[in-house]
């Protein structure tokens, strides 16, 4: 109560009390008669009145020239704190407060403009978050939903008030999915394109592609996560449909391929059986034998195809060892040279002397090269060579320019192949051969090369020839080392 009374009134009150006490003493002791005492009393009252008046003047000065401007300043600052940036001070008075008011007004307008800028940026960013069709959800470190955007409301059917403060797991079809995603996050603070499913308010399941990022404050403290999810339900549906139709198309293609290969073999069986029947009825042993040979050829082709099919679907695990390609080449030479000669084809080899042993499965590489050489032979037989031209197959091997890979080339100057054939040569059951082709030879070859972490490519021009190029890592690739280690451990 006492604290609220201004200091001037307090002082005045004290002087009045003292004056009353002095008057009381004067009355009791009769000091008025004493001229000295009379003077002292007059002086006292004069001084007292002067002090009271000075205090009054001081209060007036302080009240009007300091306290009021300070109060105005404080009021304006309070208004600033309450984001009322239009509050300005009067700058008319010509004193120190004028300067202060002017600085304050400056500060207020600067604050007002930066606040307006901030609001604009905030509105812009909020606009982006709100107008995007993606689902954007922020979650507290405790796993409670903090905010969701309009995209989330639309996609999931919830209103903000339905979900804010609730556990984020309520949106997942499998509540463990979020935990799994967070575990994948690791030290990067991000998990990208994590595929999961959300359940909408009315129970529908939506496929989403989720990217979650950790949110941190400037000190690095985790303040939650933000998840941006793209609704991919429609795309998934289309993808499934496509996969479904592709699967059927692929099965159709396989069946067509098998049927095409089989009909030539069955053709042999049927024709051979006819000759067997005829030979039996006419007791013609020669015809019987010829017919039976044709039947057997058909059966052999069917058996080969069945073996090839098995071979194609099996998992290829090469048995790696250091192999000199010269050894494989000389084996192929032994097998093919005579056949080539019989067909009027020249077979030549060109093996680079600087080629080191290659880490590979000798049996597989032999089989792959042999298959391509046989095709080259067929290509040479199929072409009509002009006078002076010689059908030729060149089998060569050399070190790749980086010294890490061995390159095996099989080049022929045979009939070559048109683009559409070249495009399909590694496709299972694709064959241009009438009798013996199962359409699996080159598919198997390419799978064997792939199992070596190698590559196979082909260049061909109709009526000019074909080059098959096999590239094999020599021995230093990590994958090969791993494969060898795998082999060793599986043997031990």
């Amino acid at each position, binding site marked *: 109560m006492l604290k609220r009374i201004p200091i001037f009134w307090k002082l005045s009150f004290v002087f009045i009390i003292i004056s009353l006490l002095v008057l009381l003493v004067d009355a009791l002791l009769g000091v008025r008669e004493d001229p000295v005492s009379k003077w002292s009393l007059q002086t006292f009252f004069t001084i007292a009145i002067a002090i009271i008046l000075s205090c009054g003047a001081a209060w007036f000065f302080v009240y009007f020239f300091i306290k009021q401007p300070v109060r105005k300043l404080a009021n304006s600052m309070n208004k600033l704190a309450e984001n009322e940036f239009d509050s300005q001070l009067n700058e008319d008075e010509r004193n120190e407060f004028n300067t202060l008011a002017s600085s304050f007004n400056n500060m207020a307008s600067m604050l007002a403009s930066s606040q307006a800028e901030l609001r604009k940026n905030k509105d812009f960013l909020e606009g982006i978050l709100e107008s995007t069709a993606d689902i954007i959800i922020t979650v507290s470190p405790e796993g409670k939903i903090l905010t969701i955007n309009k995209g989330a409301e639309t996609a999931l059917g919830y209103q903000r008030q339905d979900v804010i403060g609730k556990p984020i797991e309520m949106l997942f079809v499998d509540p463990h999915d979020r935990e799994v995603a967070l575990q994948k996050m690791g030290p990067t603070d991000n998990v990208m394109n994590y595929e999961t499913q959300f359940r909408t308010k009315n129970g529908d399941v939506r496929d989403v592609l989720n990217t979650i990022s950790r949110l941190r404050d400037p000190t690095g403290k985790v303040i939650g996560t933000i998840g941006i999810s793209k609704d991919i339900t429609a795309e998934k549906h289309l993808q499934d449909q496509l996969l479904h139709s592709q699967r059927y198309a692929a099965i159709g293609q396989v069946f067509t391929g098998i049927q095409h290969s089989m009909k030539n073999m069955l053709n042999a069986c*049927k024709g051979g059986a006819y000759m067997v029947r005829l030979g039996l009825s006419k007791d013609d042993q020669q015809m019987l034998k010829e017919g039976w040979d044709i039947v057997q050829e058909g059966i052999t082709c069917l058996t080969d195809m069945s073996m090839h099919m098995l071979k194609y679907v099996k998992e290829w695990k090469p048995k790696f060892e250091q192999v000199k390609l010269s050894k494989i080449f000389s084996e192929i030479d032994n097998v093919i040279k005579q056949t080539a000669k019989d067909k009027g084809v020249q077979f030549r080899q060109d093996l680079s002397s600087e080629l080191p042993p290659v880490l590979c499965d000798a049996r597989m590489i032999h089989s792959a090269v042999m298959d391509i050489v046989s095709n080259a032979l067929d290509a040479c037989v199929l072409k009509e060579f002009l006078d002076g031209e010689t059908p030729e197959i060149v089998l060569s091997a050399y070190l790749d320019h980086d010294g890490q890979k061995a390159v095996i080339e099989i080049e022929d100057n045979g009939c070559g192949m048109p683009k559409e054939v070249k495009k399909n040569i590694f496709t299972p059951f694709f064959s241009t051969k009438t009798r013996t082709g199962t359409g699996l030879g080159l598919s198997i070859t390419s799978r064997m090369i792939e199992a070596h972490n190698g590559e196979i490519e082909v260049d061909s021009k109709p009526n000019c020839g074909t080059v098959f190029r096999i590239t094999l890592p020599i021995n230093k690739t990590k994958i090969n080392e791993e494969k060898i280690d795998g082999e060793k451990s599986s043997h031990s």
Partner: protein
Amino acid sequence: MAKKVLIVDDDVNTVKFLSVALQENGYEPIGAYDGVEGIEKIKSENPDLLILDIMMPKKSGFVLYKQIRKDERFKDLKVIMLTGVAETLEDLDTQSEDTLERPYDSLREKLRETIKTMQEDELVRPEMFIDKPIEPEEVVAKVTELIGN
């Protein structure tokens, strides 16, 4: 005099058993193993009927067919083609394009091309199509149907 039937097929077995079957039924079979040899034999032997395979080295059955149909001397030669074209053509007639399965795509394209070539060149279509695997007796019956005995 026995009627001559030329069999052009790169599959030696087909040529062999068809020859036996035709011979058994009083025809004179002649074999050729690719398109080039086929055209030579047509010219040299002047057959009454041609049994022609489609997929052959050097010269395909279609190319050979086109060549003989353009030649005045052979444009009326009776031809049996060893292919499933007839069935596929029927499929094409009965199915709308949208419902055709994918595996037919390349075949359909090839057929269209062939049919277009035949139409452009005003070629007479082959008398008959027989798809493999073939029954020798059935082929002989068709031959008899076309050229008699």
